[in-house]
């Protein structure tokens, strides 16, 4: 399996009126061709800004850490070092849309209200494919058809506000896919939808990802969704990835206390009768990150004197798994 994207030591800071905050610290993950990485974590843990950094979509107030490496293997086999690209370069414009597509949580707000859906799909197509207007329009109609929009030939000339929520998100998927990206980033694409529609859109995305052989980063705050779509998972807490591994293994046998907590809080058929046990305590604000392990303020297994002082390293407790927790780092504990 070949590597599509590898991110190492991604650190993101923002200049704010209250000083500099660093909501993402030392994040490392990878996506292979044709596989789906699920990025899971509570709201505010830094999922969106991390993926925006991949497409260089962060605002001017943001800056990347000096050690940040984001290496992406383009469709033509060339390796792009995303962190070095300039904001207005041709490479970054080819990368945006053509190599990586992005879908957002709010399908309504993702479309401009003053242009038709067709206008925005055709724009994406013509930026990345050598097609005439007429060809691009035919291609766009095919694409809308493919994402399950009925009567695509008429829908294409409608505005986003004339469609239902589910249809809008399907249309947004069509926009992202029509440029032919090798990596699709979906930032909570189903969170804003009705429950029944959620499942349909989820199925659609999984099917399209398999059919087109795309890599995908699927962001969610719901581990249950991860089980349905992801091959691999990375669990994020307060700007750090605390655990990664194959989705099935992580869900069956979580190692990090935070992942264990998330799973315990998940409703499922056999826990419906029992009471769910949510993780105690509040997620701290990203500008008041706790010292040491960021999770120590809520961790039941914390090692006093260590966890609140020293940041745990990422260790490999068994092949294919990685976890950032002192419980699995005996050597480190011995030194510390």
């Amino acid at each position: 399996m070949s590597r599509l994207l590898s991110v190492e030591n991604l650190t993101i800071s923002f200049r704010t009126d209250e000083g500099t905050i660093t909501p993402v610290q030392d994040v490392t993950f990878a996506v292979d061709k044709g596989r789906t990485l699920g990025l899971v974590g509570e709201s505010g843990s830094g999922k969106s800004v991390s993926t925006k950094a991949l497409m260089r979509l962060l605002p001017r107030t943001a800056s990347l850490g000096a050690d940040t490496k984001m290496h992406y293997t383009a469709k033509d086999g060339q390796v792009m070092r995303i962190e070095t690209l300039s904001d207005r370069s041709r490479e970054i414009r080819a990368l945006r849309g053509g190599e990586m597509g992005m879908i957002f949580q709010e399908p309504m707000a993702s479309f401009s209200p003053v242009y038709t859906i067709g206008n925005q799909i055709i724009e994406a197509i013509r930026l990345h494919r050598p097609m005439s207007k007429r060809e691009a329009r035919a291609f766009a109609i095919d694409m809308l058809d493919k994402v399950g929009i009925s009567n695509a030939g008429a829908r294409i000339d409608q505005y986003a506000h004339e469609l239902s929520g589910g249809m809008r998100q399907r249309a947004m998927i069509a926009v992202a896919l029509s440029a032919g990206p090798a990596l699709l980033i979906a930032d909570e694409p189903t969170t804003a939808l009705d429950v029944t529609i959620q499942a349909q859109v989820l199925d659609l995305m999984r099917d399209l990802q398999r059919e087109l052989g795309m890599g995908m980063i699927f962001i969610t705050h719901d581990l249950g969704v991860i089980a349905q779509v992801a091959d691999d998972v990375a669990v994020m807490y307060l700007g750090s990835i605390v655990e990664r591994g194959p989705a099935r293994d992580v869900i069956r046998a979580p190692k990090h206390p935070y992942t264990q907590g998330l799973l315990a809080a998940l409703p499922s058929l056999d826990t419906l009768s029992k009471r769910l046990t949510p993780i105690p305590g509040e997620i701290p604000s990203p500008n008041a990150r706790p010292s040491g392990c960021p999770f120590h303020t809520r961790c039941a297994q914390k090692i006093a004197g260590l966890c609140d002082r020293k940041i745990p390293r990422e260790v490999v407790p068994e092949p294919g798994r990685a976890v950032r927790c002192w419980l699995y780092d005996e050597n480190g504990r011995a030194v510390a």
Partner: protein
Amino acid sequence: MLRFTVERLIGMVVTMALVSLMVFIIMEIPPGDYADRYAFRKYSGTGISVTAADVQAIRVDLGLDRPMLIRYFDWIGGIVLRGDFGQAFAFETSVNKVIGDKVWLTSGILFATLILTYLISIPIGIYAAVRRGSAVDYGLTVFSYLGLALPNFLLALVMLYFANRWFGSDIGGLFSAPYRDAPWSLPRVWDMLKHLWLPAVVLAWSAVAYQIQTVRATMSDELNKLSVTAARARGVPEGRLLLKYPARLAINPIVSTIGFDVNRIFSELPIVAVVLGLTELGQLLLRAYLDLDMNVAGAILLILTFAIVFMNFLSDILLAWLDPRIKLGA
């Protein structure tokens, strides 16, 4: 869009009809009528004593004895069908002659001011929003406060002083001496343009300051929209992105206030005109009121209100074109 345009067009015509009726009623308000004033003017000082019967004869002669509604249709019919605004009392000639040139001069100043205002404030407002927080942005904010604080007539005086020093003494008025009473010709138009910029700059000044802030504020809002990020994420080049997505909506508030701007320029024009030595419609209107020359006053009022109603129509159409949600909602 066609349906929307037709609807608005009908709306405009109805508004204009109502407005013209109101103007006609205003013309009727002063005591006495045209016949009284005509008789007084014609026979005063001649020693001939005018009887009520004489006045009545004049009245019948001019058709002033007919019911008001008939006279209204007579008046508006002449204007609409023949472009004839009737007789000016005080000047003993047609209204068209009295106001003719000044209509063109006033509209010249009006459009020059509007175009100047939008040409400066839209690009600068967009630029300030894109470079929010930069030195340029702060500089523009300071300029805006200055622009809003400075009274028009003061600015006109200052500009007149400098224009005189730099461009010679002939900058006041709308024409240089050789062209003042010459018939229209290309050199005369050019001469007028050379004089037009000064009142246009003075009148545009505070509007520019105000509109820069408006455009900057809406543009900043629009720039933060998810749809802009989404467009960027599909690789739209930055310049095209800014124009196609946020800028198109950022000029909405400007377009929707074109009518207000026209109104404001009309009401600020007289004082600027006095300082710059121009004769435009506003002053003429004032004089016509003082002379009770209601045909002239009515003609000017009608032209001003029609201009505002028409510009409002234009702004509606532009707005619907900029933001299709408007016509869908209508």
